């Protein structure tokens, strides 16, 4: 009997393990250890892709005789500008590029998992750093509109007894944002991994060495856990950023009156 050698990857996943991102190399820098992880390399790929896309879409811009490429670019910029204007108000329009950048980074960083690698956003440190930027902008806005004194006094509002609760809620805002995004993407990834593992096992059970059930069937679930959830979480992350940041300042009418 002729036994054909089957490549290992056709057998499908056989070991349901969940690990953090692999460390490729690490450097010692005094007491610090700097790790170059899988996530960082994938981030470079995502950044390069977004840069290439932006460069490709914005070449040969002209006023008359708009090309299809330019129409797509204009549509995207207009959509995100309208979103920022509707959510944050006109005086926050300068904030649009950051929101657009985070949105692109988040959505492409999550969608990279469609190529079978770890999603960038299933690494908690990535989300935590984005949330930290949001936290800094919130703090900066509060100080800008209220002064240092007003910012510090805000912690004792409405009464000094609330001080620990206010500090906690200040820290909880970015932490909850990061955990929500991370939990959704990482949880979705683990569920998809379990589905692939289960279907591979099912096809081994009926005597096939090739994971035949892994073809096509998981795509239905992937539609929700990869496409819908990625888009939704990117959208929610920027929406929460915009809402928190614009709430940190005074309302629009007061700001324009003063």
């Amino acid at each position, binding site marked *: 009997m002729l036994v054909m050698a089957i490549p290992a990857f056709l057998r499908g996943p056989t070991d349901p393990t969940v690990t953090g991102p692999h460390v490729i190399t690490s450097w010692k820098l005094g007491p610090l250890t700097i790790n170059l992880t899988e996530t960082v390399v994938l981030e470079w790929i995502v950044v390069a892709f977004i840069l290439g896309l932006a460069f490709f879409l914005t070449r040969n811009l002209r006023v008359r005789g708009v090309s299809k490429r330019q129409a797509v670019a204009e549509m995207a910029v207009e959509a995100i500008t309208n979103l920022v204007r*509707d*959510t944050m108000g006109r005086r926050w329009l300068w904030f649009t590029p950051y929101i657009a950048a985070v949105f692109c980074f988040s959505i492409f960083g999550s969608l990279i998992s469609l190529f079978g690698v770890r999603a960038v956003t299933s690494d908690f440190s990535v989300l935590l750093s984005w949330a930290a930027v949001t936290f800094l902008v919130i703090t900066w806005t509060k100080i800008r509109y209220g002064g240092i004194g007003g910012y510090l006094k805000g912690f004792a509002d409405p009464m000094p007894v609330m001080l620990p609760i206010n500090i906690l809620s200040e820290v909880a805002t970015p932490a909850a944002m990061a955990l*929500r995004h991370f939990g959704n993407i990482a*949880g979705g990834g683990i569920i998809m991994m379990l589905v692939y593992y289960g279907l591979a096992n099912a096809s081994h059970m009926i005597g096939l060495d090739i994971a035949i059930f892994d073809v096509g069937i998981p795509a239905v679930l992937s539609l929700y856990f990869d496409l819908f959830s990625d888009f939704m979480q990117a959208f929610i992350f920027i929406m929460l950023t915009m*809402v928190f940041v614009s709430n940190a300042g005074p309302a629009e009418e007061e700001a324009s009156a003063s």
Partner: protein
Amino acid sequence: MDMGEAIILAGSAIGAGLAMIAGIGPGIGEGYAVGKACEAIARQPEASGAVTRTMFVGCAVAESTGIYGLIIALLLIFLKPFT
């Protein structure tokens, strides 16, 4: 596998199941929010964009407790922090 490890594994599995009880709250809350959003859109169809956006943000905030439960359950099942 010795007895102690077996007990820890069993405890982790039961704990993961219990952690997912956290899914009840967001389920009820989000359902309520979406129902109210449907009512609002039915009453005022021209505001559907703003209502939908607000609803998604509200759902996301309501969902976070469920996500915390999910994270705890995943930690207990896959990372087995106590073994």
